[in-house]
């Protein structure tokens, strides 16, 4: 059974400039132990998708439709106290800024013990031991000593490790990670990715790993979902999406990445820029930038198709394997 099934999720922001359909009909499933990479450029709706799952969307935003089935139970229907019992317990979130998780004026041990005891009746000693083992798991040296420190006494990378350790405390079934390594240096990023890779394998926790960096998901995710303008436009096995993308946007995005063997050549750029989310065009939102757009694209929004098993595309004229662009 899938751990999470998101069906037709719609989260809108009701702003002075109009209704921003930040998430507009998102569907995906996440299997036991699976890591799903959710990628896309800024403003495409990745974070709002993550926040919606944890019911952390604030006004002027609201989940206006769809289902978020966590082990078959619709999170959208839970009362706030029920949801609070889920959060930090069965479902945890890691943010780009670890200070979203950490309290600057409390020692790490206070915060971690509290996080355990909020969901389980265990002794302070047992909670403390669990905190130490969580810190050790994410590669924090001398965890027992470090427990007594305040967040500001850690470097940015270490702070993010502490936030990850807190997310692991209660052995959640699902972790939603929103760009947790984006602000870190390369050597620190790869240390953390290595820890997470090991942890995912070891604990079998399902994860949604949100990032704008396709190379990060290449190493981490089993499947990838590509978002554009509030919708998932392509989903598939990681290798499939990265080597034989079918959606024109995925193709453009991959072609835009510098390095990786086309030194000095022109990058295959996508023309134009991301649309204003309060004024999306009719039809396919990518049409103004798409090299394959035709009249039909400008008139009707494409529906999801499955041209090959496991490959989901939202495009009238996808680039399929037979005619893959060279």
């Amino acid at each position, binding site marked *: 059974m899938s751990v999470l099934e998101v069906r037709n999720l719609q989260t809108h922001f009701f702003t002075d400039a109009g209704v921003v359909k930040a998430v507009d009909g998102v569907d995906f499933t996440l299997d036991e132990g699976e890591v799903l990479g959710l990628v896309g450029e800024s403003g495409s709706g990745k974070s709002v998708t993550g926040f919606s799952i944890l019911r952390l969307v604030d006004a002027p935003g609201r989940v206006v439709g769809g289902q978020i089935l966590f082990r078959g139970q619709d999170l959208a229907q839970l009362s706030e106290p029920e949801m609070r019992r889920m959060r930090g317990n069965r479902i945890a979130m890691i943010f780009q800024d670890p200070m979203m998780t950490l309290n600057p004026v409390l020692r790490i041990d206070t915060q971690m013990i509290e996080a355990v005891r909020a969901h389980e009746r265990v002794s302070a000693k047992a909670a403390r031991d669990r905190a130490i083992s969580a810190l050790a798991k994410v590669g924090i040296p001398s965890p027992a000593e470090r427990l007594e420190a305040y967040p*500001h006494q850690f470097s940015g990378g270490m702070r993010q490790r502490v936030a990850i350790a807190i997310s692991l405390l209660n052995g959640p079934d699902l972790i939603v990670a929103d760009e947790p390594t984006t602000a870190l240096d*390369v050597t620190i990023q790869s240390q953390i990715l290595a820890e997470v890779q090991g942890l995912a394998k070891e604990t079998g926790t399902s994860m949604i790993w949100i990032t704008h960096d*396709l190379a990060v998901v*290449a190493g981490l995710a089993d499947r990838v979902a590509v978002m554009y303008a509030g919708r998932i436009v392509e989903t598939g096995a990681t290798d499939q999406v990265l080597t034989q993308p079918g959606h024109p946007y995925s193709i453009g995005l991959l*072609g*835009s990445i*510098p390095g990786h063997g086309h030194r000095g050549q022109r*990058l295959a*750029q996508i023309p134009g*820029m991301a649309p204003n989310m309060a004024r999306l065009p009719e039809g396919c939102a990518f049409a103004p930038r798409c090299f394959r757009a035709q009249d039909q694209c400008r008139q009707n929004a494409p529906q999801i198709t499955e041209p090959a098993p496991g490959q989901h595309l939202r495009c009238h004229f996808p680039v399929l394997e037979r005619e893959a662009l060279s």
Partner: protein
Amino acid sequence: MTAMLELDAVSRQFIRKLDSIEKLARKLGANLSESCVNAVDGASFSVARGEVVGLVGESGCGKSTLGRMVAGLLPVTGGKIRFEGVDVTDAATPAAKSARLRIQMIFQDPMSSLNPRMRVEDIVGEAAVYHGLTSRREMPDYVAATLEKVGLDPAYAQRFPHQFSGGQRQRIGIARALAVKPEFLICDESIAALDVSIQAQVINLFQDLRRDLDLTYLFISHDLGVIEHIADRVVVMYLGRIVEIGTTEALFDAPRHPYTQALIDQIPRLDGGRQSFRTIKGEIPSPLNPPPGCHFHPRCPFAGPRCQREVPVLRHEGTRAIACHLEDGGTE
């Protein structure tokens, strides 16, 4: 090939005052005091006319400080900078003033470097008028031509910066730099804040401009993919010091300094499927209190006793230069 830009043992120290968090930490008992940072420590390299030299390293290694010294925006505390063979180290000299116009810098965050109350036309044209490259009367046409060069519609000239997207604002910043007809551009993380698809557009723009205007670049980035794509030669820094220099090809295909090896090893790759992330141990040490000898030794898998005692010198070998005891008699 004669060098267009030459750096000779350029250094910059900062006396670092405590920030508010550190002051608080001191009250809570942390042992902190004001101290001296060697932000750039004896950097020597050159850039030939027409070349793109990439400057890469993790945050705090001194890239921006180095760029600002070359641009004449920050005085050096040691060493010499020569531009076209002329000493421009002292900002007050006429040679340095002329170099300051021919060398332009493009920053990461276009918004913070663009005056929000000025129209694009004035942002781009102001310096060109001041330096007599165009007249006040001809300025609108001059600006229109410059905007076209960077792919912006000249009809935008009367707008204000906030009316543009991030990518467009970066183009305005580039147009402003180009308006004074520079020969040398320093790009400091100029594309770091942009989305991948917009980043690609701006990288392509930099390459077109290089070809069309015979520009020379010092391209600063923490992103190895970007550096690999755009640079002819690469300079790698770690904690204020240059550790390796080489042609892009040689450096990426066969990095020789252990830090460069680690960096390149750790670029997440799109190809090669589900790789395991490889790592080097440890954190980037505080620049306030860098390890003695080779700054990299606490993290280096090859470190020996000599590495803790002795600072490795940057040894040149043709187009390659490496600062590591392994390349110079061993680590014992």
